[in-house]
């Protein structure tokens, strides 16, 4: 039965190889890289209560909205902004090169207040319509703001009432500028000149346009990787993987001769199928994920080692070559299953319990184990059956 079906089984292998090649190549751009490899920021924010602004459902929803606005203005491609649980907001910014600036912009409350001499707030940023960076006559960056109609009215009142006196401009309670009102401003437009650097002015404009957060927000987790460091990691991981694969290929040929060559063929199938599945499942490759893959390369040939050793034993015990191969595959299978189930238990746990990059390790390890059971047992059986009569193993 097995022998008669051999051409079909071989065709299935060829078909899978063709399909995988189609899915995997050209590799460039097909494998989704995690933030630790492509560079970027993973930022977890938490809304915290303050006496003035306790956190409620509506506040958290607005926080998400405002942060989304701010990030849109940062010009990040494919950002992720997602609420996590009751009070947390997850922000992922791929490719960000200046994570400190990103965090400053995302996490700032950005409450703009105008206060008169007595320290009373006369107007807030809630009435802003727009904010833009401009340059004054000396070429210094300033932030030009314009109010909505309500704000323009309030601002006109405030400036009228305070001519000749300072009107302090505060951001999150910190004085950023304290201009003296020369004359009433009725048009609803003003400038904030606060000895800014260009970047500071740009940040402020973004914050003011997107609006103030209704509650205080704290950064409780920030994992950021500069893109060049990520690229270094990819290159190092790739180098380690390639050398690792070569070492395993060489070992199998040196130790098991032509049978080792068949195991190597199966290993190459494993790598191909693994990445086809990985891409097909739209999984994300992380740095620990690379480690998981490298590890499964070594584990993948374990199945072949177990089978070949069993074949040797069966042959030594006096069975015919054919019978030894049959018995070897059959008897080793139970061990291979055992070996993989326990490792899979650990891998699936990391996959389901883990967070962030380590999830990537669980993914590659689980996928690698499942895939290697197929290539190590089924695919290598096809290769062994195809060449069985022409091959001999030293026993």
């Amino acid at each position: 039965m097995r022998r008669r079906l051999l051409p079909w089984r071989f065709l299935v292998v060829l078909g899978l190889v063709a399909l995988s090649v189609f899915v995997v190549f050209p590799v460039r751009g097909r494998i989704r890289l995690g933030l630790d490899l492509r560079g970027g920021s993973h930022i977890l924010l938490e809304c915290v209560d303050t006496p003035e602004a306790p956190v409620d459902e509506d506040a958290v929803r607005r926080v998400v909205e405002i942060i989304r606005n701010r990030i849109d203005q940062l010009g990040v491609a494919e950002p992720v902004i997602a609420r996590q649980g009751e009070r947390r907001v997850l922000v992922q910014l791929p490719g960000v090169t200046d994570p400190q600036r990103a965090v400053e912009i995302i996490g700032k409350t950005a409450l703009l207040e105008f206060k008169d001499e007595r320290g009373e707030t006369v107007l807030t940023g809630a009435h802003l319509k727009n904010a833009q960076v401009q340059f004054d006559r000396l070429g210094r960056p300033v932030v030009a703001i314009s109010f909505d109609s309500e704000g323009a009215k309030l601002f006109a009142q405030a400036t009228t009432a305070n001519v000749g006196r300072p009107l302090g401009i505060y951001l999150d309670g910190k004085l950023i500028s304290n201009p003296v009102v020369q004359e009433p401003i009725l048009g609803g437009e003003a400038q904030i000149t606060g000895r800014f650097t260009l970047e500071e002015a740009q940040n402020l404009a973004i914050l003011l346009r997107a609006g103030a957060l209704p509650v205080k927000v704290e950064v409780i987790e920030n994992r950021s990787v500069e893109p060049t460091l990520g690229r270094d990691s990819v290159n190092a991981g790739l180098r380690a993987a390639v050398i690792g694969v070569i070492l395993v290929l060489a070992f199998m040929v040196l130790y098991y001769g032509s049978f080792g060559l068949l195991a190597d063929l199966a290993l190459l199938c494993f790598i191909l199928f693994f990445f086809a599945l990985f891409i097909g499942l739209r999984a994300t490759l992380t740095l620990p994920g690379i480690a998981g893959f490298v590890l499964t390369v070594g584990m993948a040939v374990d199945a072949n080692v177990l089978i070949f050793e069993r074949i040797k034993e069966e042959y030594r015990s006096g069975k015919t070559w054919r019978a030894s191969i049959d018995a070897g595959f059959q008897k080793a299978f139970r061990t291979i299953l055992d070996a993989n189930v326990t490792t899979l238990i650990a891998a699936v746990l990391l996959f389901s319990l883990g967070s962030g990059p380590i999830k990537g390790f669980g993914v590659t390890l689980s996928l690698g184990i499942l895939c290697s059971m197929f290539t190590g047992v089924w695919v290598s059986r096809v290769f062994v059956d195809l060449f069985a009569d022409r091959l001999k193993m030293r026993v």
Partner: protein
Amino acid sequence: MEFIRATHINFMGVRKVAYVLSLVLVAVSLGSIFFRGLNYGVDFAGGTLLQFRFGREVTTEELRSILGTFGLAKSVIQRFSPNEAVIRTTKLSQEDQSRLSALLEERLGSAELLRIEDVGPAVGADLRRMGIIALLVAIGGILVYVAFRFEFRPAVTSILALAHDGLTVLGVVSLLQREFTIPILAAVLTILGYSINDSIVVMDRIRENLLGKKRSEELEEIVNRSINEVLSRTINTALTTALPVFSLFFLGGKMLQDFALAILVGLAVGTYSSIFVVSALWVDWEKRSPHRR
């Protein structure tokens, strides 16, 4: 090429030596874990880790004195190259992080921030809880599987050996004061899952050989024969798994080196225990109180 032909090594004869060695391994590991402690990374302990590339080469002492002016003289400084450094401190606020970057930039020409790992206490606690759950569930899962798969006694000795393997990996991480991070936890979990296999292979073979044993054969002889029979696969599976991990250790970059080290230690000690300890413990148990079969 054949490294391991039919061997006739008397493993049972050296089992007392193996017991002593294993007890020492476990004792030293436990001692180190309790007294030296695990060097928790920011994942579990919380804190801030910043990796910089500077405009010029800088010594660790110089770096430490600059950090001293910031009140951070006690930070952990790790060096990858003369113009790069990883600085680990207690949790710094956003403002302090920016101020520190600015200070380093001012003093060292330039300070490019390559990596931030900033974990607050709440997240650190979450990760610790998650880590403990993962470890417990993994151990539970493996126990359940082994209980189904083995008879009682081989299951117990395999689990003992597994605990021995896991503890030794943690012990080495603690002794070398490598950072205990999520990847290291992942390595320990993986070793627990992987290491049990070799024990399964050996104990299965013993069971098989017991069924067809000759009347005159002693228990030790059967066990020795069984271990010798499966020796090449025990060693070769560990070796093929270790080869790419070696490559990872040497070529995979600094960030995966500790992970690779933990796996290599686990593979070595796991292979050792499945050859020298698991079945030996079982033999002594059987000899002390023979199990009816």
